[in-house]
């Protein structure tokens, strides 16, 4: 049997798990697993918000991808610039090409601040390490006024992150004894402050208790950097002194450049089999796809196992029966050592969670044990 070739694009949580599980499952003479990553660094994105609020050091969120991969996985540090489904090849920026029998696209979402005029000049965010560090300095210098928290557009990664950030702002300025000088105004693109309806009442209570003002159905259309206002496509205008806005997102550039994406650059992917709709030998994993679940590390984590099983079945000539059930779970930090967790899938909405210490501790523990348990595929 010829050695089968599996290529994984992207060394985030999903890509790393798939590569590790397949390298564990197959001997080198059976399958060669190659992971391509632009930087060779694995970044734990849920920690960015804590960098902004001065509670985590950036270096604790970054590890060498090589150290998280099994020895048998070949790591190529490089950038995929074109995918050729007909020739089953991925072309890299350095001119080389990788042939594949199965390809996994796990490149994540791309931040595209330039899509909203004025964004780069006016807005702060915590969706990259650089952004989080810049926000940290802005918060440190802030002595009072109105902070507007919102999202530039949907979809965006980690749907609870903006409301979590509003809670963290309240907690941060309370600790700094400046809370009475800071107004926090949360603008939600949806019909309620929290995306998931069963969890919304809990978040509304937190907002009411901590004096966080909210406006619903506010989908940003423009920023006026001179007047310091944000205007929605629904026609409302809101002033800000400090603007915390999740940046616009698109799918992966190579997906767009190869003509494989939809209008937003997202990869059309079957939500159960995770095979791309146009090419069943290519799998879509995590944030870069159009699968209708939260763009989150947890979703990528659960999807990775389905994809590893499906590829193993394909390579051994078995029917691939693994299906992704839409499972997502996450922890949110509401400040004051309180948290909420939620777990849901395509068939089961989240159960309204109690707010408490237990889920806050859960989040803190996950932030530490992630490196030991998740990328290896052990859990």
């Amino acid at each position, binding site marked *: 049997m010829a050695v089968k070739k599996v290529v994984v694009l992207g060394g985030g949580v999903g890509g790393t798990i798939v590569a590790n599980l397949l390298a564990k499952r197959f001997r080198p003479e059976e399958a060669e697993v190659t992971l391509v990553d632009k930087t060779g660094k694995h970044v734990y994105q849920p920690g960015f918000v804590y960098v902004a609020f001065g509670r985590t050091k950036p270096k604790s969120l970054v590890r060498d991808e090589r150290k998280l991969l099994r020895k048998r996985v070949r790591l190529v540090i490089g950038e995929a610039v074109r995918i050729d489904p007909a020739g089953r090849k991925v072309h890299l920026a350095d001119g080389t090409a990788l042939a594949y029998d199965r390809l996994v696209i796990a490149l994540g979402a791309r931040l595209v601040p330039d899509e909203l005029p004025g964004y780069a000049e006016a807005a702060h965010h915590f969706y990259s390490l650089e952004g989080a560090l810049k926000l940290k300095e802005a918060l440190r210098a802030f002595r009072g006024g109105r902070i507007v928290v919102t999202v530039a557009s949907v979809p965006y990664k980690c749907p609870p992150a903006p409301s979590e950030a509003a809670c963290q702002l309240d907690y941060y300025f309370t600790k700094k004894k400046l809370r009475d000088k800071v107004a926090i105004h949360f603008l939600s693109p949806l019909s309620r402050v929290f995306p998931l309806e069963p969890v919304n009442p809990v978040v509304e209570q937190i907002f009411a208790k901590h004096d966080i003002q909210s406006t619903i159905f506010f989908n940003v259309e423009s920023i006026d950097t001179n007047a310091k206002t944000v205007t929605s496509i629904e026609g409302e205008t809101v002033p800000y002194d400090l603007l915390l806005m999740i940046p616009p997102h698109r799918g992966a550039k190579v997906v767009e450049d190869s003509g494989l994406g939809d209008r937003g650059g997202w990869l059309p992917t079957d939500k159960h089999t995770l095979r791309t709709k146009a090419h069943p030998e290519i799998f879509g994993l995590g944030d870069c796809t159009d699968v209708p679940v939260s763009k989150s590390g947890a979703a990528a984590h659960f999807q990775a196992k389905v994809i590893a099983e499906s590829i193993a079945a394909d390579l051994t000539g078995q029917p691939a029966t693994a299906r992704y059930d839409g499972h997502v779970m996450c922890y949110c930090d509401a400040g004051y050592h309180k948290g909420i967790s939620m777990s849901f899938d*395509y068939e089961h909405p989240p159960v309204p969670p109690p707010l408490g210490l237990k889920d806050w501790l859960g989040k803190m523990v996950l932030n530490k044990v992630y490196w030991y348990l998740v990328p290896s595929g052990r859990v």
Partner: protein
Amino acid sequence: MVSAEQKIVLDARGSFCPGPLMELIRGIKQAKVGEVLEVWSSDQGSRKDIPFWIQKAGHELVGVFEEPSYARFVVKKLR
């Protein structure tokens, strides 16, 4: 009458509210004025959320069509 080829279909069945509304907002932002979009939702919350948002955002709800296990919301982008 709009032919099926001209319509942009957003299948958000199995996605809980606000998934279908998010799909529609995303679709509307990417669409051109005058284009017709159709979002499919199996979530009951969409029956309230989607028409409410369409009205607030100033688009046209062409119709809501009930299928055995989901609803199709047909929307025309007006602005």
